[in-house]
């Protein structure tokens, strides 16, 4: 079932004002309701290799998997929603693929990437993430961070050592505690949330949220939500106007209308009584 009628997607990516090349990679597929963002790391061009493998492999594998099964169903063996199982398996594959390339080719040694994957299905958004790239949700004019960074700073904030404000002055920025492709196995954090008509989801690399305050992101999505592509470009521009110290990538997904999964007649009938 195509989600093109229900979801509007826009993306923008930019090298920024300081870096020589863009190690971020993004992929969107409105038809299957998928958005992938990866912020690569590693010397020379290894970062973009890692992020490129991640987005390409995850989009093609997800597309293929969705032909075989519907992600809103429940996995019979584990009892978890299939979307979660599916993303976990595909992310594990991507991890293996990056890890093996890094180990087999010396120029790619140590490469890795952060990752955010959003999969929309049956009025739900399932978000998987690793590292410090983020997903935000704008609902009713309010911006809320959905993912929590896997980073040293976030751990320090959690433990009460730093306040969110003090964290901005920390010199330990950009230290992630999890990344895709660095070790033989990685655990993605995966959660599902109900999606509502009018929601705007923002997936971004730290090049955006390090340079643009949350209030300014919120204001931009509120002011320009009617023109998603413009909003994405405006966010990138704001990050660059503020210094653009890192690569900046933005994916925006707007829920235009609800998107229930096609279910059998019985399920429809049954859902009446829920």
């Amino acid at each position: 079932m195509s989600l093109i009628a229900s979801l509007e997607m826009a993306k923008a990516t930019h090298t920024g004002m300081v870096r020589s090349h863009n190690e971020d990679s993004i992929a969107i597929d409105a038809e299957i309701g998928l958005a992938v963002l990866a912020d690569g790391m590693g010397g020379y061009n290894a970062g973009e290799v890692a992020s490129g493998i991640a987005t390409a492999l995850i989009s093609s594998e997800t597309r293929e998997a969705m032909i075989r099964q519907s992600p809103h169903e429940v996995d019979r063996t584990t009892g978890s929603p299939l979307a979660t199982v599916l993303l976990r398996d595909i992310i594990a594959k991507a991890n293996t693929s990056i890890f093996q390339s890094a180990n087999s080719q010396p120029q790619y040694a140590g490469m890795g990437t952060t990752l955010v994957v959003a999969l929309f299905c049956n009025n739900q958004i399932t978000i998987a993430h690793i590292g410090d790239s983020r997903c935000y949700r704008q609902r009713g004019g309010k911006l809320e961070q959905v993912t929590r960074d896997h980073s040293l700073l976030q751990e320090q904030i959690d433990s009460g050592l730093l306040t969110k404000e003090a964290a901005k002055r920390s010199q330990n920025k950009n230290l992630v505690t999890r990344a895709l492709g660095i070790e033989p196995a990685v655990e993605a954090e995966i959660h599902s949330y109900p999606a509502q008509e009018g929601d705007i989801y923002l997936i971004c690399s730290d090049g955006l949220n390090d340079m643009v305050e949350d209030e300014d992101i919120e204001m931009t999505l509120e002011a320009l939500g009617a023109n998603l592509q413009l909003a994405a470009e405006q966010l990138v521009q704001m990050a660059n106007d503020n210094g653009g110290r890192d690569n900046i990538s933005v994916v925006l997904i707007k829920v235009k209308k609800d998107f229930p999964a096609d279910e059998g007649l019985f399920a429809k009938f049954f859902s009446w009584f829920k």
Partner: protein
Amino acid sequence: MAKLILSLDGQLIKEFTLSKERTTIGRKPHNDIQIDNLAVSGEHAIIMTILNDSFLEDLGSTNGTLVNGQPVKKHFLQSNDTVEIGKYKLKYLSEAPASMNQAEFEKTMVLRAPAAAAPKQETRSPTDTQTNLQATNVNESVTSGQAAPTSAAAPAPAPKLAQAPTPATVQPAPPAAAAIQGGGTIQILSGPNAGKELPLSKPLTTLGKPGVQVAVIAKRPQGYFITHVEGANFPVVNGKTLDAQAHQLGDHDVIELAGVKMEFFLKP
């Protein structure tokens, strides 16, 4: 690596490098920084250093600890902070970013728990966790004893926005961070709000009628730019219809939008 410079009445006494995760300060001899003075408690304070950040904590001392003249219990040290213990002063100097290429420094690196044995990774120092301060190569992963991240609720959302759906006039963008420079202003020339002025103090100001025609004026370091947001009609500036591209506004440009004329001007 960050250091502390101990002085008394402007006389330099000694310099300490914060090379350990925990640096203790006190009167008793077992402290890393011993200050043999009765105004100083036996175990007076401690400085925790995590990679490039250092945190000062007063250990319930009798006479307290001041940072830049303010009493503190816990403090996130910033370079050039002056810590006062009794009559003694400790100046905190952080050198981390200067000692390496800033751009390299900002590159994302992976922090790994030591338990997850890193293959082929040289062991840096078995006891210290701060030895990778000089890591300029992103291929090097930083070893640290940090525990795995815990999951909890997302941070509190930002405050609610104001929305003013006044028909066919001006809808100021919601509150934002303080503007860098003032100046740009819109004055309405026609319609029921003629004569009204709207300062363009926010990074973004939307104009028009949602669902009919909306344009946005972005305040940027280079100036003010108007861009079409939604609607079948594009804004007209000085009689010329704009395309989808952003258009830089000049002083006294006249904008027509959703049937309303307005003038952009720069206040001195």
